[in-house]
């Protein structure tokens, strides 16, 4: 089949901007791909080039086998017909238009034959249906990002670019937006490129990450491999790793995540309601035997899949039916002889669970 030969997105671009040089080449499959790296690495510039906002000095970009930019052949498809939608860090909603008008703007400009997504259904799904008559200035940060997401998704894009869409949000709202992104991807099958400098969002969303450093590709690897880098960085100034899940509140007030049920306090959320749950990797403990008298309410049996030991920390990936990342010290890994295949128990307190709607 041709589609298995032609990568979904392929690019090789060069750009000089003053002191900064961007020189990146990669091939992405569909699905969600993360672009990861410190600020100033060229992540946003790369997105700008892919979206047609910035013209590279040289190179080419091909989407679905179609050349959308090629400096050698002087090809540059018009910005408005690329079908590559972008969500900005601060939303970039039109301040003089209502939420509804913002969302309809791109939808109305989309050719009727290309419209695959109903804006109204999308608004209900993102729980912004009640905001349509309001102006962007009156929205909270989380609402603004959901509206921006809806506005871009409503154009039924071929590719969705997300430029640190959760960077300005607090942890709860970040989890919520990340969870919506995941669900949008599953629901509508839109390929996404997710730019971030936070390992937690990247881990929750994308299997693979293109890591940029000073304008060049440092690596293109499974996101899980990035955990080894984190384990080798000092704790000061690095990201916490969060386990992020979408779950459902059970009739007994617990939360079902995949195959496991966790004891939480979903106050204000009713049975059957979908929630986003996050548990920091540093709030989880491992035990080799099932503890009997312990205050932590969540004790889950699992098997270690992988252990990453660095200079400053270690991480264990444990499959309990749902995967948990657990932060440990390298001493703990050694003394408990933690290695892949070993049976362990995952322990965490109810109060370590952060719950957000959606």
């Amino acid at each position, binding site marked *: 089949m041709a589609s298995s030969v032609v990568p979904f997105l392929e690019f090789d671009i060069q750009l000089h901007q003053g002191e900064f040089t961007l020189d990146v080449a990669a091939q992405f499959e569909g699905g969600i791909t993360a672009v990861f790296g410190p600020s100033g690495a060229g992540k946003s510039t790369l997105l700008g080039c892919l*979206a*047609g*906002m910035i013209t590279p000095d040289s190179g080419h970009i091909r989407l679905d086998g179609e050349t959308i930019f090629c400096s050698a052949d002087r090809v540059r498809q*018009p*910005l*408005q*017909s690329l079908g*590559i*939608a*972008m969500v*900005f860090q601060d939303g*970039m909603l*039109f*301040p*003089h238009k209502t939420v509804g008008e913002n969302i309809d*703007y*791109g939808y109305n*400009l*989309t050719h009727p034959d290309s419209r695959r997504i109903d804006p109204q259904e999308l608004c209900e799904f993102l729980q912004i249906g009640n905001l349509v008559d309001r102006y962007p*200035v009156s929205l909270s940060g989380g609402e603004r990002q959901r509206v921006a997401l809806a*506005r*871009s998704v409503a*154009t039924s894009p071929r590719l969705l670019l997300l430029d640190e869409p959760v960077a300005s949000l607090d942890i709860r709202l970040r989890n919520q937006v990340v969870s919506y992104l995941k669900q949008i991807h599953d629901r509508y099958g839109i390929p996404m490129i997710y730019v971030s400098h936070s390992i937690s969002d990247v881990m929750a969303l994308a299997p693979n990450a293109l890591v940029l450093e000073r304008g060049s590709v440092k690596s293109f690897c499974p996101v899980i491999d990035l955990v080894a880098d984190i384990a080798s960085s000092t704790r000061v100034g690095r990201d916490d790793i969060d386990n992020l899940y979408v779950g459902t509140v059970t009739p007994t007030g617990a939360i079902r995540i995949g195959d496991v049920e966790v004891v939480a306090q979903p106050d204000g959320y009713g049975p059957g309601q979908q929630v986003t749950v996050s548990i920091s990797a540093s709030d989880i403990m491992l035990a080799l035997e099932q503890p009997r008298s312990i205050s932590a309410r969540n004790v889950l049996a699992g098997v270690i899949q992988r252990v990453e030991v660095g200079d400053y920390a270690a991480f264990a990936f444990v499959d309990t039916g749902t995967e948990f990342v657990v932060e440990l010290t390298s001493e703990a890994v050694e003394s408990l002889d933690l290695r892949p295949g070993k049976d362990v128990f995952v322990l965490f307190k109810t109060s370590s669970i952060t719950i957000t709607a959606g």
Partner: protein
Amino acid sequence: MLEATLLSLQTALIATIAMAVPAFLIATYLVRNNGRVAFIVDLAISMPLALPPVAVGFVLLWFFGATGPLGSFNPGIAFTWPAMSIAAGVVSLPLVVRAFTAGLAEVDPRLVFAARNLGASQLRATWDVTLPLARNGIAAGLLLGFVRSFAEFGATIVFAGNIPGSTQGLPSAMFSRISAGDFSEAWTLAAVSIVIGGIALAIHNKLVSEQRTRLAARSASDG
């Protein structure tokens, strides 16, 4: 007297309408570019601010005359009513461009890009996003251009003359009355210009202060 007032209003209106699109294009260029070419463009269109209006009229007379660059293609426009609008337009253009530039500088280029990204053509994005967001600056610029055109005297009297019933607008009429010692007529004309200019300027100032309030509110909500 009514004739002179109406002629001045007509002159100012035509000059303002004719200036709108070129001023918008120049302002858009100046907002996006700050290289050497932009510096020269800015300097060239701003010259009428620094020159005596009489000199501007003199240059126009040469430009549109038989010995000017147009040579035998000169349209014979000097000393006709269209010359009044041209003189007024050239003198007002820098003010209009400045006000437009201030309005356009307020519009975040990423908002325009967002519109393009959602499927809008450049023209469509300008219409749907740039113009509404820069509307106060645009409206202020047009009003300022109108007021300045309505008041234009120096360049006009050199390039268009002072022919009653043909090229004698309100300022030239006033000049003629004063020269002739007819002060009561001159005062009436002065009163008319104070009323028209005052109203236009009041609206202009309101638009500018609204724009400032909006900017202040925006930076407050950002911070």
